[in-house]
């Protein structure tokens, strides 16, 4: 029996060492790549002074095209949105952005609209994409701030990376193999961070806005983002993306907001109820650029002439 325990102990140690090395290697490969937004920001974005950044979920990712906005306004912006994320993830992304020594005048938050009111925030599905930076305190602290199992797994991965890499193997390990060969490969976004949904044939019907949603901006993480923005002299703007049939009623005036929930009135511009397609994106980005220009002009005027 002694022999058995000796051997099994040896086997386990070798196994742990191997998994540890593989996990470290996997995270290293992802950290050096442009595959996910957090490492894309670190490795592929050379600009350090931005006029605006967009932080959002799939709505922000697919609605506001920074290339189009930049060409209209001659500004420098970047889209740092990630699909399947909530306002907490956008808070983490802002911290990550600032930790890289980058600055911006405007921070546009564009999450799914329900996220604005969410008070019991949970870890978002794609927050594992920061795992390669878990050695940074703000990332680790962020994971520690949640109670769910996935958050614990990510949190423990600081010291035992094989836990997170194993749990999220499809999302972390396979891409890491890919990025070893193609470090510049991006996970479905362009070099300015944008992605668009294709145009499916949909009816050319006008939309009736029957559903109303009250927005009180109750998310505690939104308050944290505001504080962080204030500390870094960044103007925060809450963007409400176009929706098919839902209009928004904002009941909290403490946040600057752009409500584009009803800006698109025809179904042919939508991919689904919450996302525009590439045609809708053109419309939405154009409208956004116009508002942003007005906001900037007003700010310049205020700065020159006082309130």
């Amino acid at each position, binding site marked *: *029996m002694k*022999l*058995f325990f000796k051997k099994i102990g040896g086997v386990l140690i070798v196994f742990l060492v*191997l998994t540890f090395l*593989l996990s470290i290697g996997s995270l290293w490969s992802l950290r050096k790549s442009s595959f996910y937004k957090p490492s894309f920001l670190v490795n592929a974005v050379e600009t350090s002074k931005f006029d605006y950044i967009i932080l959002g979920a799939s709505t922000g990712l697919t609605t506001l095209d920074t290339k189009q906005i930049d060409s209209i306004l001659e500004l420098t912006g970047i889209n740092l949105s990630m699909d399947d994320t909530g306002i907490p993830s956008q808070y983490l992304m802002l911290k990550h952005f600032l930790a890289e020594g980058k600055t911006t005048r405007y921070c546009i938050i564009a999450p799914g609209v329900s996220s604005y009111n969410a008070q019991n925030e949970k870890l978002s599905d794609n927050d594992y994409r920061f795992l390669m930076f878990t050695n940074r305190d703000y990332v680790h602290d962020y994971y520690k701030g949640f109670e769910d199992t996935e958050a614990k797994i990510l949190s423990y991965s600081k010291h035992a990376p094989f836990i997170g890499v*194993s749990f999220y*193997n*499809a999302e972390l390990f396979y891409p890491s193999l890919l990025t070893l060969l193609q470090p510049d490969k991006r996970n479905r976004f362009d070099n300015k961070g944008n992605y668009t949904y294709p145009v499916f044939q949909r009816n050319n019907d006008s939309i009736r806005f029957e559903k109303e949603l009250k927005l009180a901006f109750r998310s505690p993480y939104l308050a944290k983002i505001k504080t962080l923005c204030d500390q870094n002299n960044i103007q925060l703007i809450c963007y409400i993306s176009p929706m098919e049939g839902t209009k928004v009623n904002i009941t909290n005036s403490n946040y600057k907001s752009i409500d584009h929930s009803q800006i698109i009135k025809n179904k042919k511009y939508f991919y689904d109820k919450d996302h525009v397609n590439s045609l809708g994106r053109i419309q939405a980005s154009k409208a956004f650029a116009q508002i942003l220009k007005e906001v900037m002009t007003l700010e310049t005027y205020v700065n020159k002439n006082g309130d």
Partner: protein
Amino acid sequence: MEFTSFSFAIFLPIVFLLYWFVFNKTYKTQNVLLLSASIVFYLIADWKFISLLAASGFVNFWLAKIMIQKEDESFGRRLLFYLGIVFNVGILLYFKYLNFFIQSFVTLFNYNDAVNISFTPFHILLPLGISFFTFQMIGYLIDVYNEEINPTNDFLSFSTYLAYFPKILSGPIERVQDFLPQIQKKREFNYALTVDGLRQILWGLLKKSVLANNIMVITDSIFNDFHSMSGSTLFMGAILYSIGLYADFSGYSDIACGVSKLFNIKITNNFAFPFFSTNISSFWKRWHISLTSWMMNYVYTPLSFITRDYKKVGLILSINLTFLLVGLWHGANWTYVVFGLYQGLLFIPLIFRGSALNNNELDVNKFGLPSLGDFLKIMRTFLLVTLGMIFFRAESIAQASQIFLEISSSSFFSIPTIRPSYLFIIILVFLLVEWAGRTQEYAIEKLWLKYPKVLRWGIYYVIAMIIFLFGGKEQEFIYLQF
């Protein structure tokens, strides 16, 4: 608590250490530990029905003891026997089939709108492992009644047999005469068997975590959205489902057998490489072996005795009734009934050829490959089984019919929408390893034992790494629902 859960990874080493270091004095102390561990295991898995499990053990133990004291062929003995059968079947009927039978009768009565009866199904929870442990108890009573075995007087061992945690949730359906003699003597630590057990657990984990968990994600996405899938995609889905189901259940069985070997107790291996069968009879001798053996012993054999005068018609009837029960055993749904009947019907050509119960052994050439004829037979059997799996997977007969309709439409010739991925490579390598190890208890039992130690261990580590890095998101074992 599932075999692939984190809690089981803590539970098993603790029981293992206690078993060999603390409770190793006598077989009774060993059984006390196994029973206690099994109770804890069942409590964590399904605490609500622990009393049902206890009642089942208690009633069957005493019924068998009292029954055997009655005279042969006496009324009292028969009465006790039938009481026992009614008790066990009653448990199964109540918990598993009551709603199904009532709903089916209601549908039948309402068929021509002559009467209109409404029925709200009862809220009855299904106890975990019920189909497995009640079948064990029925088998025990029949064997005692037929005087094939003597009833045991050792309640501790009997309870351990009933509740033994490696097999309580999804079998195998173990016969008492195979199990009790092993636990009624002190078990000594067996190094070779323990290592063999660990190797089998490793192989089972690979099947479950890498193959079944990943495949089921794909098949769920196909069958849950079957309306919008082409015939070719549905057909691919059915093939993947067959492989996934095999990987899931045989993976479970490998882990169960492997875990049991750690305690120096051998339990029935439920699978013997069924996908390499050349006909349906051979397939069912290799698929869920403990269930088919049970059905053979307690259903088919008595039935074929009763129908022996009707020759081939009698044989067809016996086989089809047996498979009807095999189907129904899986669950209270007409899809399982059709699944069973379909399997039974596949035997008819074999019956007319006189080879219904023959065991077809494969001949291989010097390269270890089957002849072209055998290969085609293997493919044919796999295809027939796969088509049957559509009933097994479908939620209703209507859904299965729609899937069959789509498969038989022109869309069968379109390109399937399943993306080829690393999983297809893993499946291919897995099937090759299974083929290479098909004469063993499980594929890698002795497969690489002749290799130098370094190489062999290298392979084991590769398997472990594949489990670690390619394992899919944890999903419940499919047979837990039965």
